[in-house]
């Protein structure tokens, strides 16, 4: 059998290299698009041959790499990773179409960075060796940093630096956690290993409870900052807002932190010295993120900033679903990641269109755009509805699973989150009403609707939101299989 997962990393990487050496914008975007399409085709093939009913690793690859340190080249996917890979490979080519006509400096580097980013993110999703995982995890930083730093808005230097420092420090803390579990298991078993499944299985055998908690918290910190969760979120609004549209979408596709929660945090959570405390921490941070993100979004003037805060609010559902710790709440959290990626991609694209045509993102300076841009208004409306959780769209599926099934475990936080949903609906509708409906603001001059290049990708993603909202099973089923396995860990302990 072909090494599918290696190819899935290598194809974007190789195309990224080729793109770097193209001479013109036309060449760069075509090469990049071909690369993204090839990756998409491969991931679709893998998706259709993927066995949703099995929680074990599939397409596994295992080669010895640095045996003296127990490091191996170990790849594999399961129901946690597969939907996220699919999300990434679907949205990236669409995003390339969306940016097809954009004029910017150094297009070859721009497209090369996008593909490099894709390779790094997929690398994180498929790595089953902590060493490899960490390498890819760090590699995701570099394209994003340059994306913001070069093609960003007026405040780009500050935003990119802040993003970099925040998340780099967080990953270093995470690295400490990795070292902790690595050496603890080395001392116990007498041989080194960086294998993720092996190390996770060794975690309960670590005798020192303090050490177990320390490792857990270090890893959790790394993921929470990247996710981000309140109170470690302050890099996000700056970075998302200053990034160009493609950069914002790349940030949205950076679902590695939530992935880490499912892959690493939840399997070891039952073996910390006080699991119920850890669950409360997760639930509290989730609920606070949901409420805080919604409240701050309500008060934003800048549409892009509002969306950035709504993103924090939505990611809170991931933490809350994890805190629920039953199969359905965890699957809900996983589905929230998938759904959020689709929804936010359109949201940022819409804001990009609005800013490009009207020259402003300030909500109060817009108004009545729907009359001039009907196509955009339809897609935006659908997305905003999905984002606020209208039944029949993906956001609803995710949130209802999280809320309904987390209630048993963390009822207080679910009630807080329910309250926040009202605010969520409010800021979405209010923004929509002020920006898109009502009387057209004549100061904006003559604006035209979205171009074909922009409309098609947005429409495709919108259809996906509708499709997965009505029929989540194609991805939900595999998520459920994996979450069942995670939740069974907790059940064994009877906590």
């Amino acid at each position, binding site marked *: 059998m072909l090494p599918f997962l290696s190819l899935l990393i290598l194809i974007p990487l190789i195309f990224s290299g080729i793109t770097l050496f193209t001479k013109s914008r036309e060449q760069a975007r075509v090469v990049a698009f071909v690369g993204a399409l090839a990756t998409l085709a491969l991931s679709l093939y893998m998706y259709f041959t993927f066995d949703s009913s099995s929680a074990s690793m599939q397409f596994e690859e295992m080669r010895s790499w*640095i045996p003296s340190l127990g490091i191996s080249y170990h790849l594999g996917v399961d129901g946690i990773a597969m939907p996220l890979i699919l999300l990434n490979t679907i949205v990236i080519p669409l995003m390339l179409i969306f940016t097809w006509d954009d004029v910017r400096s150094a297009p070859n580097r721009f497209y090369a960075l996008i593909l490099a980013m894709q390779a790094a993110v997929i690398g994180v999703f498929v790595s089953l060796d902590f060493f490899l995982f960490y390498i890819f995890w760090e590699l995701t930083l570099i394209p994003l940093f340059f994306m913001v730093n070069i093609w960003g808005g007026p405040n780009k230097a500050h935003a990119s630096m802040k993003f970099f420092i925040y998340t780099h420090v967080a990953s270093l803390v995470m690295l400490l956690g990795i070292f902790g579990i690595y050496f603890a298991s*080395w001392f116990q078993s007498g041989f080194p290993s960086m294998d993720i499944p092996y190390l996770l299985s060794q975690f309960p055998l670590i005798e020192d409870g303090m050490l177990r908690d320390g490792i857990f918290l270090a890893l959790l910190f790394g993921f929470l900052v990247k996710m981000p969760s309140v109170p470690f979120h302050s890099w996000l609004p700056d970075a998302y807002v200053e990034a160009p549209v493609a950069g914002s979408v790349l940030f949205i596709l950076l679902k590695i932190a939530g992935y880490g929660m499912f892959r690493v945090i939840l399997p070891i959570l039952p073996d910390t010295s006080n699991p119920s405390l850890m669950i409360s921490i997760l639930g509290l941070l989730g609920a606070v993120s949901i409420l805080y993100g919604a409240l701050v979004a309500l008060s934003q003037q800048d549409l892009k900033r509002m969306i950035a805060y709504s993103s924090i609010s939505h990611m809170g559902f991931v933490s809350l679903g994890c805190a629920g710790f039953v199969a359905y709440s965890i699957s809900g959290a996983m589905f929230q990641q998938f759904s959020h990626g689709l929804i936010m991609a359109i949201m940022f694209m819409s804001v990009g269109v609005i800013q490009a045509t009207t020259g402003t993102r300030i909500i109060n300076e817009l108004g009545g755009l729907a009359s001039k841009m009907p196509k955009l208004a339809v897609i935006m409306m659908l997305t905003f509805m999905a984002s606020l959780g209208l039944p029949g769209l993906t956001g609803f599926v995710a949130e209802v699973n999280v809320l309904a099934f987390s209630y048993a475990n963390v009822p207080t936080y679910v009630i807080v989150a329910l309250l926040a949903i009202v605010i969520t609906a409010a800021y979405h509708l209010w923004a929509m009403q002020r920006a898109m409906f009502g009387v057209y603001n004549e100061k904006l001059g003559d604006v035209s609707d979205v171009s074909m290049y922009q409309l098609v990708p947005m429409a495709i993603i919108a259809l996906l939101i509708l499709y997965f909202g009505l029929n989540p099973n194609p991805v939900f089923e595999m998520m459920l299989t994996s979450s069942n396995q995670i939740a069974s860990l907790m059940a064994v302990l009877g906590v």
Partner: protein
Amino acid sequence: MSDLMLIAPELIIGITGLIIVLAGLFMGRSSKNALGYLAVLGCLSAIALTISSFATTGSLLAEALVIDALSQFFKLVFLAVALIVCIASIKYTEGNDNAEVFFGLVLFGTLGMMFVASANDLITLYVSFELASLSTYALAGFEKKNARSVEAAMKYILIGALSSALLLLGISFVYGATSTTSIPGIAENIDVLLNNTVGILAIVLLIAGFGFKIALVPFHMWAPDTYQGAPSVVSALLAAGSKKMGIIAAFKVFIVALIALQADWKIAFAALAVVTMTYGNVVALSQTSVKRMLAYSSLAQAGYITMAFVVLTPMALTGGILYTLAHGFMKGGAFIAVGAVVYMVMAKNKDSEVPDHLDSFKGLGKKMPITAFCLMIFLFALAGIPPTAGFMSKFVLFSSTIEAGLVWLAVIAILNSAISLYYYARVVKYMYFMPAEGERFSEPAPYLVALLIALAGVLAIGIWPEPFINMAMQAAEVLLPL
């Protein structure tokens, strides 16, 4: 005869050096280029011999020299650095009437370093130390009409003489207390040294003596000026090679001879390591001269390596030793890349005041694409970004620190490497994201060959570290038998 085979690499380097110096007397200015190729050939054959005889052990000259995995590993580091320096210097010394002196000095300096790696006796160690130092003093001042180069050499000589004096004084105290200069002999008589006030003084002097060579804070003042002022190829030799000589000497003296002191002096080494890496990184942040920045980053890197003395487990030593090799490639490569840029700047404007200013790097990705790419990889390697040698060696070294329970030290080191990323990335930003001024410059071939060799080294250690880790482990076992 078999004894001589043990030091065959040294003999080759020494003889090549002599031939070059002598042959240079009879050659015209234009044909002296051949000498460079001869020096490269000498380095290559010495490397081949060292690798082929790796892990053989033996001693000669009444145990004044021992050959083992440790000394051979460091010889490889020195030879690799000498190799890339010699290759790049073929261009640097082109048309220079004193080319034979330059190559002769590089080879003699390398010879001194190689003998330090094998020295098993403090006197041998000191003499070899001086051989290397004297050669590099002259090299630093090689551009005798360039005030900066002369200034660099003067500072280097004065501070170097002081450190040699301190070292010699320290050795004499050690000899006075233990009545031997043999390193294993000192280890046997360590009690005498410990119960003697002179012993403490001796150790302080030794730390200072080696500290100057390694450029540990507070013995570092000469390094930035010297690295900046000296010709770039010489800076590469100093930072990537001669600094390692201090490290191997310190390994031998402090780990083999004075291992019993380890517990008492741990905190002193920890303080040196922390202060050195933090100071180096913080000061590097504000530099606009790239060579000076590399000099400060070199301080920081020495600080990381010093952590191996603190942790002192086989794994930490493996990490420290691997780091010296990795550092040889990345720092040597970085200085040579800067050398290529300086060459370009000087070719356009002979009177450039600070040819290695950050502004010279604007748009380098367009002007000198291969040099810029190599430099970017070296800088990322220095910052510890995977998959490079810098990441791999930091990984082994830092993880060993955690293994030993010194989490605080690891945290400081990790935060330091996070800081360092800022100033390395700044150079990359200048190279790739600032508009180029001027046309594409045809990159001089010798520099390119040297850069590509260093690049191959950096990537090989990063991607396939297993053989290098094994070699470093064998070397570490010599220091700290399991």
